[in-house]
Protein backbone atom coordinates (compact mmCIF):
# COMPACT_ATOMS: atom_id res chain seq x y z
CA UNK A 1 0.00 0.00 0.00
CA UNK A 2 1.35 3.43 -0.85
CA UNK A 3 1.98 5.84 2.01
CA UNK A 4 0.96 9.17 0.57
CA UNK A 5 -0.72 12.00 2.37
CA UNK A 6 -4.26 11.14 3.24
CA UNK A 7 -7.00 13.13 1.64
CA UNK A 8 -9.38 15.27 3.60
CA UNK A 9 -11.84 12.99 5.42
CA UNK A 10 -14.84 14.98 4.19
CA UNK A 11 -13.92 14.53 0.53
CA UNK A 12 -16.08 12.07 -1.38
CA UNK A 13 -13.97 8.89 -1.59
CA UNK A 14 -13.56 6.89 -4.77
CA UNK A 15 -13.57 3.54 -2.99
CA UNK A 16 -14.70 2.81 0.51
CA UNK A 17 -13.00 -0.45 1.49
CA UNK A 18 -14.88 -2.41 4.18
CA UNK A 19 -12.67 -4.37 6.56
CA UNK A 20 -14.31 -6.88 8.90
CA UNK A 21 -12.92 -8.22 12.16
CA UNK A 22 -11.65 -11.43 10.57
CA UNK A 23 -10.03 -9.67 7.60
CA UNK A 24 -7.04 -8.04 9.23
CA UNK A 25 -4.46 -8.72 6.52
CA UNK A 26 -2.94 -5.90 4.52
CA UNK A 27 -2.09 -8.22 1.63
CA UNK A 28 -5.83 -8.73 1.17
CA UNK A 29 -7.38 -8.22 -2.27
CA UNK A 30 -9.41 -5.43 -0.65
CA UNK A 31 -6.30 -3.25 -0.90
CA UNK A 32 -5.38 -4.03 -4.52
CA UNK A 33 -5.16 -0.67 -6.25
CA UNK A 34 -5.85 1.17 -2.99
CA UNK A 35 -4.84 4.80 -3.23
CA UNK A 36 -4.75 6.65 0.10
CA UNK A 37 -5.17 9.91 -1.82
CA UNK A 38 -8.70 9.02 -2.89
CA UNK A 39 -9.76 5.79 -1.14
CA UNK A 40 -10.71 5.17 2.49
CA UNK A 41 -11.27 2.25 4.83
CA UNK A 42 -14.39 1.54 6.90
CA UNK A 43 -14.36 -0.55 10.07
CA UNK A 44 -17.12 -0.87 12.67
CA UNK A 45 -17.38 -2.50 16.08
CA UNK A 46 -21.04 -3.50 16.23
CA UNK A 47 -22.82 -5.19 19.13
CA UNK A 48 -24.81 -7.50 16.86
CA UNK A 49 -21.69 -9.49 16.03
CA UNK A 50 -21.18 -10.22 19.74
CA UNK A 51 -24.79 -10.94 20.64
CA UNK A 52 -26.25 -12.91 17.73
CA UNK A 53 -24.73 -15.79 19.63
CA UNK A 54 -24.02 -15.18 23.33
CA UNK A 55 -20.27 -14.69 22.82
CA UNK A 56 -17.46 -15.32 25.28
CA UNK A 57 -15.98 -12.04 26.53
CA UNK A 58 -12.55 -13.16 25.34
CA UNK A 59 -13.86 -13.81 21.82
CA UNK A 60 -15.30 -10.28 21.68
CA UNK A 61 -12.06 -8.83 23.08
CA UNK A 62 -9.94 -10.79 20.59
CA UNK A 63 -11.75 -9.31 17.60
CA UNK A 64 -12.02 -5.77 18.95
CA UNK A 65 -8.40 -5.58 20.07
CA UNK A 66 -7.07 -6.96 16.80
CA UNK A 67 -9.32 -4.54 14.87
CA UNK A 68 -8.05 -1.55 16.85
CA UNK A 69 -4.44 -2.56 16.30
CA UNK A 70 -5.14 -2.92 12.58
CA UNK A 71 -6.73 0.51 12.55
CA UNK A 72 -3.64 1.98 14.24
CA UNK A 73 -1.36 0.39 11.64
CA UNK A 74 -3.39 1.75 8.73
CA UNK A 75 -3.65 5.16 10.37
CA UNK A 76 0.12 5.33 10.87
CA UNK A 77 0.53 4.70 7.13
CA UNK A 78 -1.60 7.69 6.24
CA UNK A 79 -4.76 5.75 5.40
CA UNK A 80 -8.08 7.39 6.24
CA UNK A 81 -10.04 4.94 8.36
CA UNK A 82 -13.68 5.62 9.20
CA UNK A 83 -13.75 3.60 12.39
CA UNK A 84 -16.83 3.32 14.60
CA UNK A 85 -15.98 2.23 18.16
CA UNK A 86 -18.47 0.15 20.10
CA UNK A 87 -18.81 2.80 22.81
CA UNK A 88 -19.56 5.65 20.40
CA UNK A 89 -22.99 6.90 21.52
CA UNK A 90 -24.20 7.10 17.93
CA UNK A 91 -23.19 3.50 17.14
CA UNK A 92 -26.13 1.87 15.36
CA UNK A 93 -25.25 -1.65 16.50
CA UNK A 94 -25.17 -3.50 13.18
CA UNK A 95 -23.11 -3.54 9.99
CA UNK A 96 -26.18 -2.58 7.99
CA UNK A 97 -26.96 0.43 10.18
CA UNK A 98 -23.38 1.65 10.32
CA UNK A 99 -22.74 1.16 6.63
CA UNK A 100 -25.92 3.02 5.73
CA UNK A 101 -24.89 5.95 7.92
CA UNK A 102 -21.31 6.15 6.61
CA UNK A 103 -22.31 5.72 2.98
CA UNK A 104 -24.97 8.39 3.29
CA UNK A 105 -22.45 10.81 4.76
CA UNK A 106 -19.46 10.13 2.48
CA UNK A 107 -21.22 9.07 -0.73
CA UNK A 108 -18.36 6.86 -1.99
CA UNK A 109 -18.41 5.93 -5.68
CA UNK A 110 -18.02 2.27 -4.83
CA UNK A 111 -17.91 -0.09 -1.87
CA UNK A 112 -15.30 -2.83 -1.91
CA UNK A 113 -15.00 -5.79 0.40
CA UNK A 114 -13.52 -9.25 0.44
CA UNK A 115 -15.70 -12.37 0.80
CA UNK A 116 -16.73 -12.41 4.49
CA UNK A 117 -16.35 -15.49 6.69
CA UNK A 118 -20.05 -15.71 7.39
CA UNK A 119 -22.95 -16.16 4.98
CA UNK A 120 -25.22 -13.96 7.14
CA UNK A 121 -22.74 -11.06 7.02
CA UNK A 122 -22.30 -11.39 3.26
CA UNK A 123 -26.07 -11.25 2.80
CA UNK A 124 -26.36 -8.25 5.15
CA UNK A 125 -23.68 -6.28 3.32
CA UNK A 126 -25.05 -7.05 -0.13
CA UNK A 127 -28.62 -6.17 0.77
CA UNK A 128 -27.48 -2.97 2.48
CA UNK A 129 -25.43 -1.91 -0.57
CA UNK A 130 -28.35 -2.71 -2.90
CA UNK A 131 -30.79 -0.76 -0.74
CA UNK A 132 -28.42 2.21 -0.81
CA UNK A 133 -28.09 1.97 -4.58
CA UNK A 134 -24.30 2.19 -4.34
CA UNK A 135 -21.98 0.21 -6.63
CA UNK A 136 -20.13 -2.57 -4.84
CA UNK A 137 -17.52 -5.16 -5.58
CA UNK A 138 -16.85 -8.36 -3.63
CA UNK A 139 -13.31 -9.64 -4.06
CA UNK A 140 -12.05 -13.19 -3.44
CA UNK A 141 -10.24 -13.97 -0.20
CA UNK A 142 -6.67 -14.75 -1.22
CA UNK A 143 -5.76 -15.68 2.36
CA UNK A 144 -6.96 -19.17 1.50
CA UNK A 145 -5.00 -21.50 -0.76
CA UNK A 146 -8.12 -22.85 -2.44
CA UNK A 147 -10.67 -20.42 -3.84
CA UNK A 148 -14.41 -21.12 -3.52
CA UNK A 149 -14.63 -21.69 -7.27
CA UNK A 150 -11.70 -24.11 -7.23
CA UNK A 151 -13.31 -26.05 -4.39
CA UNK A 152 -16.47 -26.38 -6.41
CA UNK A 153 -14.44 -27.72 -9.33
CA UNK A 154 -12.81 -30.20 -6.96
CA UNK A 155 -16.17 -31.27 -5.56
CA UNK A 156 -17.43 -31.87 -9.08
CA UNK A 157 -14.47 -34.13 -9.68
CA UNK A 158 -12.40 -31.72 -11.73
CA UNK A 159 -8.87 -31.19 -10.49
CA UNK A 160 -6.66 -28.12 -10.05
CA UNK A 161 -7.64 -26.70 -6.74
CA UNK A 162 -6.18 -23.25 -6.84
CA UNK A 163 -6.50 -19.76 -8.13
CA UNK A 164 -7.26 -19.30 -11.77
CA UNK A 165 -6.05 -16.01 -13.20
CA UNK A 166 -9.62 -14.76 -13.43
CA UNK A 167 -10.48 -15.30 -9.75
CA UNK A 168 -7.23 -13.74 -8.56
CA UNK A 169 -7.50 -10.60 -10.58
CA UNK A 170 -9.44 -7.65 -9.36
CA UNK A 171 -10.72 -4.43 -10.64
CA UNK A 172 -8.23 -1.69 -9.91
CA UNK A 173 -8.80 0.07 -13.16
CA UNK A 174 -11.15 2.84 -12.07
CA UNK A 175 -9.38 6.14 -12.30
CA UNK A 176 -9.03 8.40 -9.34
Amino acid at each position, binding site marked *: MATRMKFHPQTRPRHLVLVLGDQL*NQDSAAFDGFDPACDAVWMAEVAKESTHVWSHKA*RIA*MFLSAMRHFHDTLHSQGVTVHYRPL*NDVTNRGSFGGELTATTGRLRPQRLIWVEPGDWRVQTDLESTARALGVAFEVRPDRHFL*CSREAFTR*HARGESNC*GWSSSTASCDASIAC
Partner: protein
Amino acid sequence: MEFFYRELRRQHRVLMEGDEPAGGAWNFDAENREAFGKDGPDPLRSPPRRFPPDATTRQVLALVEDHFAKHPGALHDFDWPVTPTDAELALDDFLTHRLAEFGRWQDAMWTNEPWLFHSRLSAALNLKLLNPRRVIAAAEKAFRSGRVPLPAAEGFIRQILGWREYVRGIYWRHMPGYIGRNALGAQHALPDFYWTGETDMACLRDAIGQTWRYGYAHHIQRLMVTGLFALLWGAHPRRVHEWYLAAYVDAVEWVELPNTLGMSQYADGGLMASKPYIASGKYIQRMSNYCAGCRYDPAQRAGPRACPFTTLYWDFLLRHEALLAKNPRTVMQVRNAVRLTPSQRREITDHAARLRAAIPAAT
Protein backbone atom coordinates in the same frame (compact mmCIF):
# COMPACT_ATOMS: atom_id res chain seq x y z
CA MET B 1 -10.82 -34.62 2.20
CA GLU B 2 -7.83 -36.99 1.70
CA PHE B 3 -7.78 -36.49 -2.09
CA PHE B 4 -8.36 -32.77 -1.74
CA TYR B 5 -5.39 -32.60 0.62
CA ARG B 6 -3.13 -34.57 -1.75
CA GLU B 7 -4.12 -32.31 -4.61
CA LEU B 8 -3.14 -29.21 -2.61
CA ARG B 9 0.12 -30.86 -1.52
CA ARG B 10 1.02 -31.48 -5.19
CA GLN B 11 -0.16 -28.15 -6.44
CA HIS B 12 1.62 -26.07 -3.81
CA ARG B 13 4.64 -28.40 -3.67
CA VAL B 14 4.30 -28.97 0.08
CA LEU B 15 6.27 -31.88 1.59
CA MET B 16 6.91 -33.34 -1.85
CA GLU B 17 9.91 -35.21 -3.30
CA GLY B 18 9.35 -34.85 -7.01
CA ASP B 19 5.92 -36.38 -7.60
CA GLU B 20 5.99 -38.41 -4.40
CA PRO B 21 5.07 -37.33 -0.89
CA ALA B 22 8.03 -36.84 1.45
CA GLY B 23 8.76 -40.01 3.41
CA GLY B 24 6.81 -42.11 0.89
CA ALA B 25 3.38 -41.62 2.49
CA TRP B 26 0.76 -38.88 2.58
CA ASN B 27 -0.23 -39.50 6.16
CA PHE B 28 1.64 -40.72 9.25
CA ASP B 29 -1.20 -40.99 11.74
CA ALA B 30 -0.14 -44.51 12.67
CA GLU B 31 2.84 -42.85 14.39
CA ASN B 32 0.75 -40.07 15.94
CA ARG B 33 -2.02 -40.01 18.52
CA GLU B 34 -0.42 -41.55 21.56
CA ALA B 35 -1.69 -41.12 25.10
CA PHE B 36 0.52 -39.81 27.90
CA GLY B 37 1.82 -42.36 30.37
CA LYS B 38 0.78 -42.25 34.01
CA ASP B 39 3.12 -39.32 34.70
CA GLY B 40 1.45 -37.10 32.13
CA PRO B 41 3.13 -34.53 29.88
CA ASP B 42 6.72 -33.52 30.67
CA PRO B 43 6.42 -30.92 33.46
CA LEU B 44 9.74 -29.30 32.47
CA ARG B 45 8.68 -28.33 28.95
CA SER B 46 8.48 -24.62 28.07
CA PRO B 47 5.10 -23.01 28.67
CA PRO B 48 3.64 -21.30 25.59
CA ARG B 49 4.74 -17.74 25.00
CA ARG B 50 2.28 -15.23 26.47
CA PHE B 51 1.21 -11.89 25.03
CA PRO B 52 0.17 -9.73 27.98
CA PRO B 53 -2.35 -7.01 27.07
CA ASP B 54 -0.91 -3.68 25.90
CA ALA B 55 -2.67 -0.34 26.47
CA THR B 56 -5.01 -0.84 23.49
CA THR B 57 -6.02 -4.32 24.61
CA ARG B 58 -6.48 -3.18 28.22
CA GLN B 59 -8.92 -0.52 26.99
CA VAL B 60 -10.81 -3.17 25.02
CA LEU B 61 -10.94 -5.52 28.02
CA ALA B 62 -12.46 -2.74 30.16
CA LEU B 63 -14.91 -1.92 27.37
CA VAL B 64 -16.01 -5.55 27.03
CA GLU B 65 -16.43 -5.96 30.81
CA ASP B 66 -18.59 -2.85 30.77
CA HIS B 67 -20.70 -3.45 27.64
CA PHE B 68 -21.02 -7.22 27.81
CA ALA B 69 -21.10 -7.74 31.58
CA LYS B 70 -23.62 -10.57 31.38
CA HIS B 71 -21.78 -12.51 28.70
CA PRO B 72 -20.03 -15.73 29.69
CA GLY B 73 -16.30 -16.19 30.04
CA ALA B 74 -13.40 -14.55 31.82
CA LEU B 75 -10.88 -11.94 30.67
CA HIS B 76 -8.19 -11.97 33.37
CA ASP B 77 -6.07 -14.55 31.51
CA PHE B 78 -6.40 -12.86 28.11
CA ASP B 79 -3.00 -13.20 26.45
CA TRP B 80 -3.66 -13.92 22.77
CA PRO B 81 -1.53 -12.39 20.03
CA VAL B 82 -3.58 -9.56 18.48
CA THR B 83 -1.08 -8.18 15.92
CA PRO B 84 0.77 -9.78 12.97
CA THR B 85 4.07 -9.20 14.81
CA ASP B 86 2.93 -11.08 17.91
CA ALA B 87 1.30 -13.80 15.80
CA GLU B 88 4.68 -14.33 14.13
CA LEU B 89 6.30 -14.68 17.57
CA ALA B 90 3.62 -17.18 18.57
CA LEU B 91 4.34 -19.18 15.42
CA ASP B 92 8.05 -19.18 16.19
CA ASP B 93 7.37 -20.28 19.78
CA PHE B 94 5.26 -23.21 18.54
CA LEU B 95 7.84 -24.29 15.94
CA THR B 96 10.67 -24.13 18.48
CA HIS B 97 8.99 -25.72 21.50
CA ARG B 98 5.95 -27.78 20.55
CA LEU B 99 5.77 -28.82 16.88
CA ALA B 100 8.24 -31.70 17.29
CA GLU B 101 5.87 -33.33 19.80
CA PHE B 102 2.62 -32.13 18.22
CA GLY B 103 1.85 -35.22 16.16
CA ARG B 104 2.60 -37.69 18.88
CA TRP B 105 0.33 -36.02 21.45
CA GLN B 106 -2.31 -34.35 19.27
CA ASP B 107 -5.13 -36.56 20.57
CA ALA B 108 -3.96 -36.76 24.21
CA MET B 109 -5.65 -34.89 27.07
CA TRP B 110 -4.57 -34.11 30.62
CA THR B 111 -6.32 -32.39 33.53
CA ASN B 112 -5.47 -28.69 33.91
CA GLU B 113 -3.34 -28.76 30.75
CA PRO B 114 -5.19 -26.55 28.26
CA TRP B 115 -2.37 -26.12 25.73
CA LEU B 116 -0.20 -29.26 25.72
CA PHE B 117 1.58 -29.33 22.33
CA HIS B 118 -1.04 -27.42 20.35
CA SER B 119 -0.09 -24.37 18.34
CA ARG B 120 -2.42 -21.70 19.79
CA LEU B 121 -2.43 -20.14 16.30
CA SER B 122 -6.06 -20.73 15.30
CA ALA B 123 -7.37 -17.30 16.32
CA ALA B 124 -4.43 -15.48 14.69
CA LEU B 125 -4.98 -17.47 11.50
CA ASN B 126 -8.73 -16.97 11.41
CA LEU B 127 -8.46 -13.21 11.93
CA LYS B 128 -5.83 -13.27 9.13
CA LEU B 129 -3.02 -11.98 11.34
CA LEU B 130 -1.04 -14.94 9.97
CA ASN B 131 -0.91 -16.20 6.40
CA PRO B 132 -1.39 -19.97 6.17
CA ARG B 133 1.31 -20.18 3.46
CA ARG B 134 3.79 -18.76 5.91
CA VAL B 135 2.74 -21.26 8.61
CA ILE B 136 2.93 -24.22 6.23
CA ALA B 137 6.33 -23.17 4.83
CA ALA B 138 7.76 -22.66 8.32
CA ALA B 139 6.56 -26.10 9.47
CA GLU B 140 8.03 -27.72 6.35
CA LYS B 141 11.32 -25.89 6.90
CA ALA B 142 11.45 -27.19 10.49
CA PHE B 143 11.20 -30.71 9.08
CA ARG B 144 13.69 -30.13 6.22
CA SER B 145 16.28 -28.73 8.63
CA GLY B 146 15.93 -31.80 10.85
CA ARG B 147 14.36 -29.98 13.82
CA VAL B 148 11.06 -31.89 13.81
CA PRO B 149 10.08 -35.37 12.63
CA LEU B 150 8.03 -35.76 9.45
CA PRO B 151 4.90 -37.18 11.17
CA ALA B 152 4.70 -34.04 13.35
CA ALA B 153 5.18 -31.62 10.43
CA GLU B 154 2.80 -33.54 8.17
CA GLY B 155 0.11 -33.89 10.84
CA PHE B 156 0.22 -30.17 11.55
CA ILE B 157 0.33 -29.12 7.88
CA ARG B 158 -2.67 -31.38 7.16
CA GLN B 159 -4.71 -29.33 9.65
CA ILE B 160 -3.91 -26.06 7.84
CA LEU B 161 -3.60 -27.09 4.19
CA GLY B 162 -6.12 -29.93 4.31
CA TRP B 163 -8.86 -29.55 6.89
CA ARG B 164 -8.94 -25.77 7.17
CA GLU B 165 -9.27 -25.26 3.43
CA TYR B 166 -11.69 -28.16 3.11
CA VAL B 167 -14.16 -26.92 5.73
CA ARG B 168 -14.22 -23.51 4.09
CA GLY B 169 -15.05 -25.13 0.77
CA ILE B 170 -17.84 -27.16 2.38
CA TYR B 171 -19.28 -24.09 4.10
CA TRP B 172 -19.60 -21.95 0.97
CA ARG B 173 -20.69 -24.80 -1.24
CA HIS B 174 -23.54 -25.81 1.06
CA MET B 175 -24.71 -22.62 2.71
CA PRO B 176 -27.29 -21.32 3.45
CA GLY B 177 -29.02 -24.71 3.74
CA TYR B 178 -26.17 -26.32 5.65
CA ILE B 179 -26.87 -24.58 8.97
CA GLY B 180 -30.35 -26.14 9.12
CA ARG B 181 -29.25 -29.74 8.65
CA ASN B 182 -30.14 -32.28 11.31
CA ALA B 183 -29.58 -35.71 9.77
CA LEU B 184 -29.99 -37.59 13.05
CA GLY B 185 -33.13 -35.71 14.05
CA ALA B 186 -31.55 -34.59 17.34
CA GLN B 187 -34.01 -32.46 19.31
CA HIS B 188 -32.75 -32.09 22.90
CA ALA B 189 -31.64 -28.83 24.48
CA LEU B 190 -27.96 -28.54 25.35
CA PRO B 191 -27.35 -29.39 29.02
CA ASP B 192 -26.99 -26.29 31.17
CA PHE B 193 -23.51 -27.30 32.32
CA TYR B 194 -22.14 -26.30 28.90
CA TRP B 195 -22.67 -22.69 30.01
CA THR B 196 -21.64 -23.12 33.66
CA GLY B 197 -19.06 -25.92 33.71
CA GLU B 198 -20.86 -27.35 36.74
CA THR B 199 -20.90 -31.11 36.33
CA ASP B 200 -19.43 -34.11 38.14
CA MET B 201 -18.04 -35.48 34.88
CA ALA B 202 -14.34 -34.62 35.25
CA CYS B 203 -13.56 -34.45 31.52
CA LEU B 204 -16.44 -32.09 30.75
CA ARG B 205 -15.71 -29.98 33.83
CA ASP B 206 -12.09 -29.54 32.70
CA ALA B 207 -12.81 -28.91 29.00
CA ILE B 208 -15.70 -26.51 29.70
CA GLY B 209 -13.90 -24.85 32.62
CA GLN B 210 -10.88 -23.97 30.48
CA THR B 211 -13.20 -22.89 27.65
CA TRP B 212 -14.82 -20.21 29.80
CA ARG B 213 -11.48 -19.25 31.33
CA TYR B 214 -9.49 -18.88 28.09
CA GLY B 215 -11.92 -19.10 25.16
CA TYR B 216 -9.99 -22.17 24.10
CA ALA B 217 -10.05 -25.94 24.14
CA HIS B 218 -7.89 -28.06 21.88
CA HIS B 219 -9.13 -30.13 18.97
CA ILE B 220 -9.65 -33.42 20.77
CA GLN B 221 -11.42 -31.83 23.73
CA ARG B 222 -13.81 -30.14 21.30
CA LEU B 223 -14.38 -33.29 19.25
CA MET B 224 -14.27 -36.10 21.83
CA VAL B 225 -15.42 -34.44 25.07
CA THR B 226 -17.87 -31.58 24.51
CA GLY B 227 -18.74 -32.60 20.95
CA LEU B 228 -19.09 -36.29 21.73
CA PHE B 229 -21.33 -35.66 24.73
CA ALA B 230 -23.64 -33.37 22.73
CA LEU B 231 -23.85 -35.98 19.95
CA LEU B 232 -24.65 -38.84 22.35
CA TRP B 233 -27.09 -36.63 24.27
CA GLY B 234 -28.95 -35.90 21.05
CA ALA B 235 -28.61 -32.12 21.41
CA HIS B 236 -30.10 -30.12 18.56
CA PRO B 237 -27.20 -29.32 16.20
CA ARG B 238 -28.24 -25.68 15.95
CA ARG B 239 -27.82 -25.27 19.72
CA VAL B 240 -24.46 -27.03 19.60
CA HIS B 241 -23.34 -24.76 16.75
CA GLU B 242 -24.37 -21.66 18.69
CA TRP B 243 -22.39 -22.82 21.71
CA TYR B 244 -19.18 -23.43 19.75
CA LEU B 245 -19.51 -20.16 17.84
CA ALA B 246 -19.95 -18.29 21.13
CA ALA B 247 -17.30 -20.04 23.17
CA TYR B 248 -14.05 -19.96 21.21
CA VAL B 249 -11.75 -17.04 20.37
CA ASP B 250 -11.01 -18.58 16.98
CA ALA B 251 -14.65 -19.14 15.99
CA VAL B 252 -15.78 -17.70 12.66
CA GLU B 253 -18.79 -19.40 11.12
CA TRP B 254 -17.07 -20.75 7.97
CA VAL B 255 -14.71 -22.81 10.10
CA GLU B 256 -16.83 -23.48 13.19
CA LEU B 257 -20.03 -24.63 11.49
CA PRO B 258 -18.75 -27.54 9.34
CA ASN B 259 -16.51 -28.68 12.19
CA THR B 260 -19.40 -28.66 14.67
CA LEU B 261 -22.42 -29.59 12.64
CA GLY B 262 -20.61 -31.92 10.23
CA MET B 263 -17.50 -33.35 11.79
CA SER B 264 -18.65 -33.51 15.39
CA GLN B 265 -22.45 -33.89 15.26
CA TYR B 266 -22.88 -35.77 11.97
CA ALA B 267 -25.85 -33.50 11.29
CA ASP B 268 -24.89 -33.16 7.62
CA GLY B 269 -25.40 -36.89 7.15
CA GLY B 270 -21.79 -37.67 6.25
CA LEU B 271 -20.59 -34.79 4.08
CA MET B 272 -17.73 -33.93 6.44
CA ALA B 273 -17.20 -37.16 8.35
CA SER B 274 -17.46 -40.69 7.01
CA LYS B 275 -19.17 -41.87 10.21
CA PRO B 276 -20.51 -40.41 13.46
CA TYR B 277 -17.54 -40.00 15.84
CA ILE B 278 -19.04 -41.97 18.70
CA ALA B 279 -17.24 -43.61 21.61
CA SER B 280 -17.94 -44.64 25.18
CA GLY B 281 -16.21 -43.20 28.24
CA LYS B 282 -13.45 -45.73 27.68
CA TYR B 283 -12.04 -43.63 24.83
CA ILE B 284 -11.62 -40.68 27.21
CA GLN B 285 -10.11 -42.99 29.82
CA ARG B 286 -7.54 -44.23 27.30
CA MET B 287 -6.58 -40.75 26.04
CA SER B 288 -6.46 -38.82 29.35
CA ASN B 289 -6.23 -38.95 33.12
CA TYR B 290 -9.71 -37.49 33.55
CA CYS B 291 -11.35 -40.71 34.69
CA ALA B 292 -8.93 -41.18 37.60
CA GLY B 293 -10.39 -38.09 39.25
CA CYS B 294 -14.02 -38.75 38.38
CA ARG B 295 -16.87 -40.25 40.37
CA TYR B 296 -18.06 -42.18 37.30
CA ASP B 297 -16.69 -45.43 35.91
CA PRO B 298 -16.40 -45.63 32.10
CA ALA B 299 -16.66 -49.44 32.25
CA GLN B 300 -20.22 -49.31 33.66
CA ARG B 301 -23.19 -48.55 31.42
CA ALA B 302 -25.93 -48.48 34.06
CA GLY B 303 -26.17 -47.83 37.78
CA PRO B 304 -25.19 -44.92 40.03
CA ARG B 305 -21.47 -45.03 39.07
CA ALA B 306 -22.04 -45.54 35.35
CA CYS B 307 -20.21 -43.01 33.18
CA PRO B 308 -22.87 -40.97 31.34
CA PHE B 309 -20.75 -41.13 28.18
CA THR B 310 -20.90 -44.92 28.31
CA THR B 311 -24.64 -45.07 29.05
CA LEU B 312 -25.43 -42.59 26.31
CA TYR B 313 -23.06 -44.33 23.87
CA TRP B 314 -25.05 -47.56 24.18
CA ASP B 315 -28.31 -45.64 24.11
CA PHE B 316 -27.10 -43.93 20.89
CA LEU B 317 -26.30 -47.30 19.30
CA LEU B 318 -29.78 -48.54 20.16
CA ARG B 319 -31.51 -45.37 18.95
CA HIS B 320 -29.61 -45.33 15.64
CA GLU B 321 -29.12 -49.05 15.12
CA ALA B 322 -30.55 -49.11 11.59
CA LEU B 323 -28.46 -46.17 10.35
CA LEU B 324 -25.21 -47.39 11.93
CA ALA B 325 -25.66 -50.92 10.61
CA LYS B 326 -25.66 -49.56 7.05
CA ASN B 327 -22.25 -47.84 7.45
CA PRO B 328 -19.24 -50.17 7.06
CA ARG B 329 -17.29 -47.96 9.46
CA THR B 330 -19.79 -48.35 12.32
CA VAL B 331 -21.13 -51.83 11.65
CA MET B 332 -18.77 -53.37 14.23
CA GLN B 333 -19.94 -50.99 16.94
CA VAL B 334 -23.58 -51.70 16.28
CA ARG B 335 -22.95 -55.46 16.25
CA ASN B 336 -22.19 -55.27 19.99
CA ALA B 337 -25.50 -53.53 20.56
CA VAL B 338 -27.36 -56.18 18.58
CA ARG B 339 -26.02 -58.83 20.97
CA LEU B 340 -27.59 -57.19 24.04
CA THR B 341 -30.42 -59.06 25.71
CA PRO B 342 -33.81 -57.33 26.07
CA SER B 343 -33.19 -56.77 29.78
CA GLN B 344 -29.75 -55.23 29.10
CA ARG B 345 -31.34 -52.94 26.53
CA ARG B 346 -33.99 -51.89 29.00
CA GLU B 347 -31.34 -51.21 31.64
CA ILE B 348 -29.48 -48.87 29.26
CA THR B 349 -32.59 -47.11 28.01
CA ASP B 350 -33.92 -46.61 31.55
CA HIS B 351 -30.62 -45.23 32.82
CA ALA B 352 -30.34 -42.88 29.84
CA ALA B 353 -33.86 -41.63 30.60
CA ARG B 354 -32.90 -41.04 34.24
CA LEU B 355 -29.85 -39.02 33.10
CA ARG B 356 -31.99 -36.89 30.79
CA ALA B 357 -34.36 -36.17 33.67
CA ALA B 358 -31.53 -35.40 36.11
CA ILE B 359 -29.34 -33.08 33.98
CA PRO B 360 -30.97 -29.67 33.60
CA ALA B 361 -31.29 -28.14 30.15
CA ALA B 362 -29.89 -24.77 29.16
CA THR B 363 -32.58 -22.12 28.91
